[in-house]
Each structure stands twice: as structure tokens, then as C-alpha cells.
């Protein structure tokens, strides 16, 4: 993990009271059985069960909406931690397929959405100029240098 995600590696997690306000505020926890921010902090930070947590596919249910972090009594950067955990999980192969494909699309075209003839036509009808393509070579170079190769073939 050469480029360590040290922005989210702080001692504050040990302040966690397990008050459950995070899970109580989480939209995904309401609808995804098995996604529980409080439990992730407990197991990952307080109990040190890091490998087990990183294998959990439900991690990706986090929408990064920040409601948990906003309401946590100890201002713990929960969303930050979850982002960090998802990053680590991706490096262990725990990455949803559609997310992988979206990123590959971006590496190829510079955008995360696929252009198509229909949309080109609608644009023309609305009097909009054709899409301006970004410099995808530059983008690919950055992705490579930043280390995305650890996770997927670019």
C-alpha cells in the first residue's frame, strides 16, 4: 500500500461510544440487511477484525452521504473511514462489477457515461454543440501513475 490512505487514519475512532447514531442515520442501513456503520467501526477499528470486514461485499452500500459523520457525537470521520475501507477492499478484489466497468469506461473515454447516437441526435436537435472529448490519454496516464493498476488492468 505504497500510497497510504493516511487522511483517514486517526486516533479519533477510539472515542467511539457505540451509541449507534451513525447506523440510526444511515439510509443504506435502513434498506440493506447486513450494512451497519457502527458494526464496521466496532469490528474494523475497535476489534481489529480488518480482513473479515474487507471481504464484506455489503461495504459498497455506503452512499457517502455523510449523515453518520454529521451526527456522530465525537465527530468521527466515519464516511472517511468507509471510503478508506472501500479503497482497501478494492485492492483485495472486493469491487462490484458495474463500478469496475464504469471506471474502465472512464479510463478509455475520459467520461463515466457512454455516449450514443441517440443522445448525439437529441443534442443536435436542441442546438447543442457536439460533445467535446477530453484528453483520455492524459487521464489514463494519471490513473496509471496514481496506481490504479493495483486494482484493474488499464
Amino acid at each position, binding site marked *: 500500500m505504497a500510497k497510504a490512505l493516511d487522511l483517514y487514519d486517526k486516533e479519533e475512532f477510539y472515542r467511539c*461510544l*457505540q451509541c*449507534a*447514531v451513525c447506523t*440510526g442515520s444511515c439510509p443504506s442501513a435502513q434498506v440493506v440487511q447486513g450494512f*451497519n456503520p457502527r458494526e464496521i467501526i466496532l469490528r474494523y477499528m475497535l476489534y481489529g477484525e480488518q480482513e473479515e470486514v474487507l471481504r464484506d461485499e455489503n461495504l459498497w452500500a455506503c452512499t457517502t452521504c455523510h*449523515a453518520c459523520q454529521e451526527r456522530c*457525537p465525537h*465527530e468521527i470521520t466515519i464516511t472517511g473511514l468507509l471510503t478508506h475501507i472501500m479503497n482497501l477492499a478494492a485492492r483485495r478484489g472486493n469491487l462490484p462489477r458495474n463500478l469496475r466497468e464504469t471506471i474502465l469506461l472512464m479510463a478509455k473515454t475520459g467520461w463515466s457515461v457512454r455516449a450514443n447516437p441517440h443522445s448525439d441526435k437529441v443534442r443536435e436537435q436542441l442546438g447543442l454543440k457536439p460533445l467535446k472529448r477530453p484528453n483520455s490519454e492524459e487521464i489514463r496516464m494519471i490513473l496509471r501513475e496514481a496506481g490504479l493498476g493495483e486494482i484493474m488492468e488499464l
Partner: protein
Amino acid sequence: MSGDKQDLERQEPSAAEPRIGVYVCHCGLNIGGTVDCEAVALHASKLEGVVLAEHQLYTCSEPGQEKIKRDIAEAGLNRVVVAACSPRMHEPTFRKTLEAAGLNQYLLEMANIREHCSWVHLHEKEAATEKAKDLVRMSVARARLLEPQEEADIPVLQRALVIGGGVAGIQAALDLADSGYEVILVEKEPSIGGRMAQIDKTFPTMDCSICILAPKMAEAGRHPRIKLMSLTEVTRVSGYVGNFNVSVRHRARYVASDCSSCGECAKVCPQHAPNEFDVGLATRSAIYLPFAQAVPATYLIDLNLCLNKSTVRVCEKCVAACERKCIRFDDRDSEESFEVGTIVVATGVDVFDAAEMPQYQYRRAANVITSLEFERMINAGGPTGGHLIRPSDQRGPRSVAFIQCVGSRSSRTNPYCSNVCCMNTIKDSLLIKEHWPETEITVFYIDIRAFGKGFEDLFQRAKQAGVRFIHGLPGEIIPLANGNLRLLGESTLLAKLYDLEVELAILSVGLKPSTGSELVRRFLTLSLTSGGFFMVAHPKLRPVDTSTRGVFLAGCAEGPKDIKDSVTQASAAAARAGIIMRSGKVTVEAITARVDPEACTGCGACVKVCPYQAIHLNEAKKAEVIEAACAGCGTCGAECGFGAITMRHFTDEQILAQIDAFTEYESDRKILAFNCNWCSYAGADFAGVSRMQYPTEVRIIRTMCSGRVATRFVERAFARGVAMVLISGCHIGDCHYIDANTHTERRYQRLRRLLESGGMDPERLQLVWVSAAEGQRFKEKIMAMRKKLVTIDPEELKRSMRFFGDREKEREAKARERAARPRAEKLAVEA
């Protein structure tokens, strides 16, 4: 030696030659395991003035102390140096040893070769031994110049001030008054009683709160030795223990004290506003009595609400209704001053404003209330006659939720636990069940703290009564159109989410220091804990004393607590205050400032820097010290540019001698540190106690305050070739002598500029603020300084030796010139 001659020597040891005894303590292996005590003792024995030097296993033990006493008698010692632990530990012990042997206690000097040497250089035995030798040499140099001192006794007034009339203030006042002292009880509200008067029942006894409080309130109101000043605030406190000068402001009441509280005036008053006692749940008129059991039972007028203003009278309905004619619209605020011997601070608490937690919808949803609002409602004398009702439709709720820790245990709001909320909620839930047993009650908690006597039983009773406890606070409260509330959260014990609809939600709000306490804090220079409550002198051994002598704490001003603990603390504070007042006098440590009127030029620089206004210019335009107000910080002494001020027991000569002593060898490899007795010296001690290891180059000189460190001391050090100098003291705002360290900072900046202008490296002088708990910080500073030290080139050192040496010669020449000038000219102020 014959008895008479010896006595003479002991009576005036400063006249005689110093005969110093040096005792190097092994302290078991604590010192002996690292420092070669024998070698240190040997080194000491060769120093000028030392007639006896030995090393012992435990100097503080009985045999150790006996030896010292014997040596004083038999070897005619008239100074004693004990090289051992920190003076903060055993200076009082050895001072008593000297007293017992008939020697003045101020003839003792200690070298700290444990906390500052052996414990922090565990693996560098040679260097530690050399350092110990240096420290002993410094102590011997100082000891040579020590003089016997007499401590002054100052009289203590037999009167106490109690600030705050809640249950703690009332209890303290009653205890003091019953002990025979006069008490002035000052309360900013129109009535005493505080928070306890607002509660309905107390836990765990379920007593009616006002029923048990009211008799005490009445007693305090009529006690012959208690002068109750309600509607009064402290505006200023100056002075010192035994003789505090207090100024207060009485706010105008507009009603005379012969009011019979008949209440006819309030009945006819046209103005109404939410009343404070009922936390806004009910109204009062402009002329009102705060609550039925108020003491004093005198009405008052809220002039902001009243239609009349101070100069305009448009409504006189109350005047017409008042039989006794006690309404006084021409009443005005007034000031009063008095003196007291001791002060008890009992300023209490306010509650957390739950609107700071938007997700709980306080003030947006009608049926979300706080625990204090609940207390007023459930109270039979309260705004709803004791009926618990929903604010939205005045119906009784069939389901109630309590949410704990609102505004507590959170770095967002208050980081501490507010102590009483768990038990308060348990009590509240039992009250509801008692009156309306069908009510569904759910308590959402993080922990249930039922730690006190009888608390666990009450908790059990609540569970037995059917109160449900769910671990997991709601994420948010959603207000529904019918006034109900939906609580969403996770019940962690069941590993399930909950979505609970209730008819009333009660937020268990935390306690915070009362708003009035800030002013009090400033006058009395009290420190605060991180939670904002007043700090005690020692959390275990002096739990009601503050570090300001003569000022004590009682009740929630010291930290959130229940009634029992408040009362206990109040009695403790009264007892402690009583100890001071009973003896009728306090002893002032003999470290105060003395002015030499001959040398004083009347420039007034000292007056400007004294934190206690203890030094002033008299009619002869000479500085004069008020001995009893002087705390001995030494800031004036450092400020005086004419050598007119002597700081007893911490004289310039003594400090300069210490500097000269350790710079006799290898000063280019050494760091001189000035540490203040209260914070940074204690911080360095703490580093020692914690066995933090740091480089051996540093030698510490202790002063009472960093404000004592005069620029000439630093200059002398550099003139003697010291590589680096560190000035350390308390954090700004925490100075034991109020703000003396601000002058330290100023002098430090000046010295830095001087170094720079002289072409030298200003980084050789450093400043660090270290609190008594920041051993780590001190260690890190020394380590950083050492890194720098090894890069200093010898040329730089030579330069500064020349530069500062020249400056010192200039200063000495000027001083000689001044001394030689005829008397009249000396009175002129120097430019």
C-alpha cells in the same frame, strides 16, 4: 565549639562563613542505579564552602533526617544542600528537618538529581553523573548566598463570601454561619434555590425536592450570621487570602423588603412574558415572585417587561393594589464593597440548549421537550399542575421516549458525562408510571450510570415497572402531522433497526457551567478543566480547594453532580474555609519582593507588570511592596533595570551564581533551562516520573514564575558561553500568577531581536509553554534543541560571549556610575 559562639553563628549565619553540608541521596536504586552518588559527593566535598559531603541511601528517611540534624549541631552546618528528588516532593520535609535542628528553613537548597537526572537519563550513566555534579555545584553556589527568612503572618477576617445560592451555596453558608463565622451569600437571581428548587422529586429517595430545600432556604434567609444579597452579582474581587476586597452590584428590585408577598400586584399587572423558573412553559407578570417558596419572599419588577421605564410612568396598577405601599419605581442599581477572609464559589450549572442538535427537532417539533421542562410539568406546583401533557394538544401522552446524553459525552457539544441524567430519567420514568401506569416508556441510552447508593435499586424498579431500555440513540426524530414523533435508530442488543412512534419525546439534556461563572473565574484567576468547570487544586487530595489560596468550590460549579454530592462538597468547602479562618491568620511564604529605596528611581516599570497590584509608588515616588498581596512571582524584580528590587530567596545573585556554577566546564555543550515552579518544572518532573528519556545536555534552574527570568540572566548565560537557553513556563492564560508569563514572552521576543541584531543565531534562545501534565512536550523540546545544539559552530559561541560580555561590562559600569552620583540626581528618571 562553645555554645555561645555557635548560637551567634546560627543567629546570623549570613554574617558568618557559609558552612555547607551536602547530602547526595541514592533513593535506593532510583538515583543510585544511574548516578554515581559517591563521585558526586566527592565532587561536592571539594567545592568552596562545603564542609561535609556524603551520600546516603534514603535521605528523607528517619535516620537520614536525623543525620542531617546531628551534622547541623556537631559540624556547625549553616546551609544544607540535599541532592535527591524534586523539591516539589520533599522541600517541605527537609525544611522541617532544618527547623527541628534550629536552623532557618530557608537555608535549605535541593538539587533535583532524580526527576531531572537519573530517571530521564537511565542509559547514560556517565553523562548523568556529570550532570548531577553540575546540578550540585549550582545548588552549592546558590546555598552560599541563601539567607534566613522570616515568614509573615497576616490576619484573616472572620467573614466568608459564598457566591451562588443553590443548594451547595446554601449548605456552605449554613455550615459556616453555624460555625460562628459571618457569611455573605450572594445570588444573582431574585431568589436562592437554584436548580434544586426547579426539580420535582429527587433520586433515589423520591423526596419532594422543594419540600426538603425550602426549610434550608428559609434558614439561610433568617440566620443571624448570614447576610443574603439576592439579585446581586459580584463585579470585582481583589486582595488575597484573609483579606479579599469584594465589590458587588445590587440590581434594582423596585419593591421594598417589607413586601408581604400577598400577590395583589401581580393580579392586576397587564404585562405577561414566559417565566424563567418554569423554563418558558408558563407566564409571569412584569411584577412577580419567581416561585412560591422564594427566599427572599419579596416581589420584583422586570423593568424590561413593565410598561414603565426609569423616567416614564404610564401604568400604576400595581402601586394602587399594594396595601403596604412597597413599590419603588425610583429604585436604582447600587454598588457595595466589603471585605472577607475566604470565598466559596458555588455558581452552579445551566442546561444544554438542545437546539444545537438539529436532528432532534427541539423547538421545531412541539412535542419534543427537555428533561428540565418535564420537571416543571410533573411538579404539582408547576405550570400544568403536575399533569404531563403534550404541548401540541394538551393531551396526556400514551407513549413517551427518553433520549439520553443529549449534549453530553460529545466533542461536538460537551465532552464529559453530566453525571445525573441517567438517574434523573429513571426517576422521571418511575414518576410517570406512578401516575399513569399505562404509559409506554422507552429509554434510549448509550450507558446507564447508576453508580451511587440506592441507584442500582431504582434502576431495577424502573425495569420492573415496565420501562424499556434500548441501547442505541435515535439518528433523528421525524415530526408527524398529528404531533407524534417517529424515532429511527438501531437497537444494538437486538441487532435490529427500530422505527418507533411515540407521542412525547424527552431529551435528557446535559449540564454546563453557569454563564455567571466566567466573570467569577477572571476575578479569582481560577483555572478551568477542559469541560469548562472550575479546576481544583488536586483532583484526589484537595477536591474542594482551588489553587488560589482561600477560595473553595462547592457543588456543580466544580462539575456536574447530584444533590447529595453537592451538599457533601459544600460542607467540605465550609470546613476548609473554616480551617483558615479559625486560626485567624495565614502565613505568607518568605519569597516576596523587597525594594531598596536608595536604588529606586521611581520609573514605575514594576508597577505596570505586577499581576496583583502589590507594588506601587508611594508619596516619595519610590516603589513600595504590599507584603501580603505579593505572591512572589518575581516579575517586578526581573523588570527593574536598576537593581532596586530583591526577590527574597530567589535573588539575582543566587540565580547568576547558579548560571556561573554550571558554566565552569564545557558550557558550549550545555542547554540552560529556566522552569517555573508551577507548570514547566512540574512538567519536567512528570517527564521524570514517566521515565521519558531525553538528552543530558540540559540543566534546569527553578524560579517561581517564568516572569522572574530577567533578560540579564539570559545574557549572562550567553556571555558565559552557554550553547542554548530555554525559557519555559505555564501556557498563556494558565499562569499561576495570572498573566506574568505575558511579560516572559515579551522579554523573549526582545532577546531574540537582540541576538539577531548582534549577528547571532536567534534560534539559540527558545521558549516553550509546558503544563504540569506535558512531560512529553518538554522532552520533545529538549530533543529538538539538542539537534540544533550539535550544529552550532564555535565561532558563533565566541561571538556571543564577546557581545554579551561587553554588554554586561557596560551595565556594570553604568550601575557603578549611578551609585557614585550625588543623591539628588538619582531621583531623576533614566531615559
